């Protein structure tokens, strides 16, 4: 999937140690009445102009965290600061923050125009200015011709755009989006992803989006945070998260991963040699942090980083033998499920370079899978 083009200056705000974060979440915890920790000691810094995603399965606390930022939930502990100003105690209607709700929450008794104007009216702006701003917003989401319609006369995609226009109309410093594309069908969702990123670039507002769709998060975000059970597991750019997952959970949650467990038997500088029962041999892999011999580790390998080879590599490392069990033909690529002799199923992705309907491999073929020393990640968690 192509990545939307981004302004390079906005990309590395979080890499600049002197940059002041725009939004700071400090040790926020939200405990619900039953004693469940929906959000558990979360700290995050988000910079101006970012498109930040909170990614996780349903019930991981990402929506609760978003509602804390909107002021719809009060955190049990912790503070929220925008540009250094503590907004933890501010009610939602006094925050410089707007939210686009998952259900869109459009007012059914108001027209599109009135919905978009609602927030502006609360600011007691002049009538002319409100009209101007509404027109500008409807133009932005290409809904001008539907201004006089009521929400029930719109399609799902149109409602989504009205909700976006309404939440952007007040020029908030921070826009929160709760599963903004969740209710759209696949084709529309893909188109809207780019549109949303383009709009974000144009208005320059900081966006925080909650999503359970990892592809969506990868495509749209400048950075993302993977959440599980109320905690943040990893924060990084889509590339960092995909190529350098910090834990087995992240590796398996973002994309597919083949994980081989083993034990470090040799550690020379950054090159580790791992004895793995799962491959029945040794795995050599680079790892930045020093590890002592004997540490139990797992090695995560993405399906596209495995190669189907005729014979095991000469050095006898970094390979596994198995039998093809399933073939998933996706057109551009094929996914093979290979059952190893050690009893694990390994996914391997092969690009279909030549045009043919039947691949070079077929069911029950015995194959060797090999990989490079830079192909995988060594995980200790």
């Amino acid at each position, binding site marked *: 999937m192509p990545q939307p083009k981004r302004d390079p200056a906005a990309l590395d705000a979080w890499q600049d140690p002197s940059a002041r974060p725009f939004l700071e979440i400090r040790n926020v915890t939200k405990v619900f009445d039953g004693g469940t920790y929906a959000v558990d000691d979360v700290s995050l810094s988000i910079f101006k102009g970012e498109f930040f995603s909170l990614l996780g399965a349903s019930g991981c606390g990402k929506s609760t965290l978003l509602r804390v930022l909107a002021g719809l939930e009060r955190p049990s502990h912790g503070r929220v600061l925008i540009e250094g100003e503590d907004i933890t105690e501010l009610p*939602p209607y006094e925050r410089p923050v*707007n939210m686009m709700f998952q*259900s869109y*929450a459009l007012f059914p*008794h108001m027209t599109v125009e009135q919905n978009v104007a609602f927030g502006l009216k609360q600011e007691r702006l002049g009538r002319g200015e409100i009209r101007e701003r509404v027109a500008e917003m409807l133009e932005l989401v290409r809904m001008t011709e539907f201004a006089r319609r009521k929400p029930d006369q719109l399609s799902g995609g149109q409602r989504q755009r009205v909700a976006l226009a309404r939440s952007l109309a007040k020029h908030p410093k921070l826009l929160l989006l709760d599963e903004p594309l969740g209710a759209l069908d696949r084709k529309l969702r893909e188109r809207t992803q780019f549109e949303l990123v383009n709009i974000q670039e144009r208005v320059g507002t900081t966006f925080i989006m909650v999503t359970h769709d990892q592809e969506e998060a990868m495509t749209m975000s400048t950075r993302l945070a993977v959440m599980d059970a109320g905690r943040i597991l990893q924060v990084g750019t889509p590339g960092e998260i995909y190529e350098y997952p910090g834990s087995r959970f992240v590796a398996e949650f973002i994309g597919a991963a083949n994980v081989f467990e083993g034990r470090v038997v040799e550690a020379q500088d950054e090159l580790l040699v791992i004895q793995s029962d799962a491959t029945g041999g040794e795995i050599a892999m680079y790892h930045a942090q020093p590890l002592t011999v004997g540490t139990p580790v797992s090695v995560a390998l993405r399906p596209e980083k495995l190669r189907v080879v005729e014979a095991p590599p000469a050095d006898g490392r970094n390979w596994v033998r198995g039998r093809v069990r399933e073939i998933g033909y996706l057109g551009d690529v094929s996914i093979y499920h290979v059952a190893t002799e050690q009893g694990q199923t390994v996914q391997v992705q092969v690009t279909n370079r030549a045009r043919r309907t039947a691949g070079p491999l077929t069911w029950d073929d015995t194959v060797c899978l090999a990989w490079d020393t830079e192909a995988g990640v060594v995980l200790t968690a």
Partner: protein
Amino acid sequence: MSGPEVTATGSTRLRRGIDRGVKSLTQGRLGRALVIALPYAWLLLFLLVPVFIVIKISLAEMALASPPYSPMLQWLEGRTLALRVHLGNYAFLWQDPLYLAAYLNSLKVAAVSTIICLLIGYPMAYGIARASPSWRIVLLMMIILPFWTSFLIRVYAWIGLLQNNGLFNNLLMGLGLIDQPLPLLHSNFAVYLGIVYSYLPFMVLPLYATLVRQDLTLLEAAADLGCPPWKSFLTITLPLSLPGVIAGSLLVFIPAVGEFVIPDLLGGPDSLMIGKILWNEFFSNRDWPVASAVAVAMLVVIVIPLLLLQRIGERQTAGESR
């Protein structure tokens, strides 16, 4: 030889036939028509026909006969069929200020009672709709509970509470707040009290039904857009509950206009209401034609505001439905 087989297929065929019949009854056009036609036939027979009989009587003259009014159709000299329409009763209603005053007073009492019911009922319905689900059941039960006693008995009970040596007066005098009993009973106050008390559930229940269905994320969205809670009540909650307000108001207003029992039992000589006039015309004066004219005029008086409100309600729900 093949006897038992034949009976077997015969019985399955029969059963299939019955199944198909039941299916067509419940799913088919015939079934749907029947389900709709039965209640309509009932309404036609016991509502529309009597209304036409009343209209017919209202166009007759009083007569010392049984029934006590002149016939509408009559054979003259055996050959000609005469149709006699007598509009005098309606003219009489218009000329005698008593009737007009009674109509206006009925409308006033009904309107004021409806507004009071709305003012009391809306917060109640709102409170119930926003309560926790387990509390909701208890609170709704308390609204419905009075229906388990007869309406008449409940109105009678107010006599015991309001009369000169009733509970309220005794309590107030016991506390030394008043020296003489307050004339609570047989007053307009008692009529309002009785109507509001009796019809409050009819206001609360439809209001509750619309309020409990409301999407609370709309209020969150309003707050998010900078609208404080009091204002979001006025701009979101209240307009969206308008269908409930209209339904509840009609359920209170319509029966209150024609209310007879409450003004008769709790009202005084000056609480003139059209229901009471109707009763007097019918049973004291035994003037069936005038009584029928009073009834028909009342119907018109009620139907006009009803149609107006219905129109508003339809427009509102049309905008709300998705």
